[in-house]
């Protein structure tokens, strides 16, 4: 058992390290203050273009679509080295992590060829238009409709929680194309131009204060049939491709998010009624609990890396990552804020407490996004333990015949 790179991985890591050291510039240190959105977008585009020109994007994608045709381990090595820096991240996670793989897997090759290179370079930002006000976890219940009109489809409806729609150039949208089929069988996926006539993007303000996601309204939006992804009626199957990539994209702990070390650091500075916080059993237990969850997930991910390194498929234990990380983040932040008493309430920019307050607010969303805690438990129970699926009274009824409650 060891934690070492294979010789090939070590070679690649050396290359990546050297390139990052020579090119990451100011990003080697944390930013003095958080970037405003437009600044973040500009910086993201610049960094993506740099990575693209150096051959560090689409690392695992086939060369035929503009990728490097390398292994998951190469991508992981790159990600590990990049995470040591403070480069802007997040703008392309959905586009390159989820949308574009769906495009080159299920799309018309000529159409894919128009979009994939520009996405890789970071010139286009993509969003994923799945959830609707009536359908989040129950994605197959969506109502946004696409009706065929000659060579085009006309889309009407509404999507919600669309991250970065306000900065996106294109998106993939799942629509209902057959209302007489049972819910899962009447869906079709399309590429949509986010600047097309009839698309209106409205920001949603998050509980945490920011506004990273949106409602997107479709009024008679036209999409050519060449922009369909997969067959008519295959939208559910195509969505599963996207969602599978989503689990990989959303799974890990956010970079630079506070962990047990932050809790120890905060506790070290607190004197409670019964003595120094670090000498209290409840504080020490909580540090231990946080370490066990966070490091347990890191170690679980190392098991996956070991499998990938051997060319094997990681085991099902990877499914525990997000469900553990999100709740642990919330519990730890809550505890740290409790420990800080009144100070835990006041927001002091640049402090450790501010990081924890941010973590506390953000974790509530993380427990929901990318698969809720409850859905993830269902997935573990059903796909890993083989337990029967939930009762679905609406599964086989033609969608148009489903009666609202």
């Amino acid at each position, binding site marked *: *058992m*060891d*934690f*070492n*790179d294979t010789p090939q*991985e070590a070679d690649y890591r050396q290359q990546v390290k050297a390139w990052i050291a020579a090119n990451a510039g100011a990003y080697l240190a944390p930013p003095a203050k958080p970037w405003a959105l437009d600044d973040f977008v500009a910086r993201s585009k610049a960094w993506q273009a740099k990575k693209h020109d150096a051959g560090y994007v689409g690392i695992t994608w086939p060369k035929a679509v503009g990728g490097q045709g390398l292994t998951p381990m190469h991508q992981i090595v790159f990600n590990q080295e990049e995470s040591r820096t403070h480069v802007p991240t997040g703008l392309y996670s959905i586009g390159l992590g989820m949308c574009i793989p769906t495009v080159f897997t299920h799309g018309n090759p000529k159409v894919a060829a128009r979009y994939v290179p520009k996405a890789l370079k970071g010139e286009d930002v993509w969003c994923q238009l799945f959830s609707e006000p009536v359908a989040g976890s129950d994605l197959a219940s969506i109502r946004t409709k696409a009706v065929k009109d000659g060579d085009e489809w006309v889309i009407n409806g509404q999507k919600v929680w669309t991250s970065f729609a306000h900065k996106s150039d294109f998106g993939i949208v799942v629509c209902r194309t057959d209302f007489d089929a049972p819910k899962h069988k009447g869906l079709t996926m399309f590429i949509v131009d986010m600047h097309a006539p009839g698309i209106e993007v409205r920001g949603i303000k998050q509980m945490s204060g920011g506004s990273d996601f949106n409602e997107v309204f479709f009024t008679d939006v036209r999409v050519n049939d060449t922009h369909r992804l997969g067959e008519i009626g295959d939208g559910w199957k195509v969505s599963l491709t996207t969602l599978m990539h989503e689990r990989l994209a959303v799974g890990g702990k956010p970079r630079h998010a506070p962990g*047990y*070390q932050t809790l*120890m650091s905060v506790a070290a500075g607190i004197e409670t009624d019964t003595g120094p916080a*670090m000498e209290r*059993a409840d504080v*020490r*237990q909580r*540090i*231990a*609990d946080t*370490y*066990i*969850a966070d*490091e*347990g*997930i890191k*170690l*679980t991910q*190392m*098991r996956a*890396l*070991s*499998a990938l*390194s*051997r060319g094997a498929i990681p085991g099902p*234990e990877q499914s*525990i990552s997000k*469900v*553990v990380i999100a709740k642990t983040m919330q519990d730890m932040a809550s505890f740290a804020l409790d420990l800080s008493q009144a100070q835990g309430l006041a927001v002091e920019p640049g402090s450790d407490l501010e990081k924890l307050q941010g973590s506390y607010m953000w974790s509530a969303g993380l427990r929901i996004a990318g698969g809720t805690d*409850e859905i*993830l*438990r*269902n997935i*573990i*129970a*059903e796909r*890993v*333990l*083989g*337990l*029967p*699926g*939930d*009762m679905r009274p609406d599964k086989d009824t033609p969608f148009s015949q489903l009666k609202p409650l």
Partner: protein
Amino acid sequence: MNFDLSDDAKTLKEAARKFLDARAGPPVARKVMDDGLTYDAALWAEVVEQGWPAARVPEAHGGLGLGADEACVLAEAMGRSLAPVPLLSTMAAIEAILLAGTDAQKAHWLPKLASGEAVGTIAWAGGDAKSPTAMPDLTLSGDTVSGVKSPVTDGLVATVAIVTVASADGPAMAIVSLDGVTREAVETLDLVRPSAKLHFEKTPAQALGTAADWVKLTEQLAVLAAWEALGTADAARDMTVAYAKDRVAFGQRIGRYQGVKHKLADMYILSELARAHALHGCWAWSAGAAELSQAAAAARVSSLDALKFTAEESVQLHGGIGFTWEHDCQFYYRRNRQIASSLGSRAHWADRLVRALEQRNRASA
């Protein structure tokens, strides 16, 4: 990156699982309990024949010279099967001698323990020693020890004990033949694995290593106990998943209900976290890494959490039948307490984990 058991250990794991699936399990544990036995002698003879007590003993002393990976998979298999034999106690005594024994002590004891001729155990609890690192009230004066140790796991079966005694630097070990030592059965919550009260009266004893050796031994044993707990939790969870797929209520298999299904998912989550830490502990032990203090503590704490939740909720998910004497749930429910109590509590080890982290932070400051 190769964060996984060695191929040899995986092979042993499969072989041990196959053997114990056939020869052990709840019915075999139940028989020992029903017949009032301290262990299954026929099974022990077969386990000895498999060479498992010899696993960690160096070839020079008649053993197989295997590593931590193999010890861990044996512990896991034993945990899973509830096999009523004193293998893990014997392996613990072997680790103590490997770690801290003089050449003469190794030459004397290891061959006997490897061959099954001697059965070993660790005797630390008793008197004021509430945790493994609290000062014991026995002392090694001259060449003897006097006093009481209780409860001692497999104390009715063992022929040699590693006994903790007070020393200037904290608890240290002495190796004591149990020939002629008065032992009483101690009733415990675990009705399959027996415990004893050992009365030492000027019993001949030899110092074994230092106080630092005892601390290190507890860490290695914590890793082994974590693997045992993992195996026990897996067995309990598998039994409960099977029940949930079969039992019907309100016209559906109960595994369909989220109240049931989510608990089982939580058992899996806790076990996989524990497995990651158990692997880390195995690595640290095997590599002689400084991280052993932190890794062993995390392995113990996380495995106790997994086993506790699993054992308790297994009864719950079986409903009324899970609470009966006849059902196997009780074996896991009781074994959970035995594992949790016999090497220092969750709180003790959580504190040791944090101390290790504090030490690491100071060292890198």
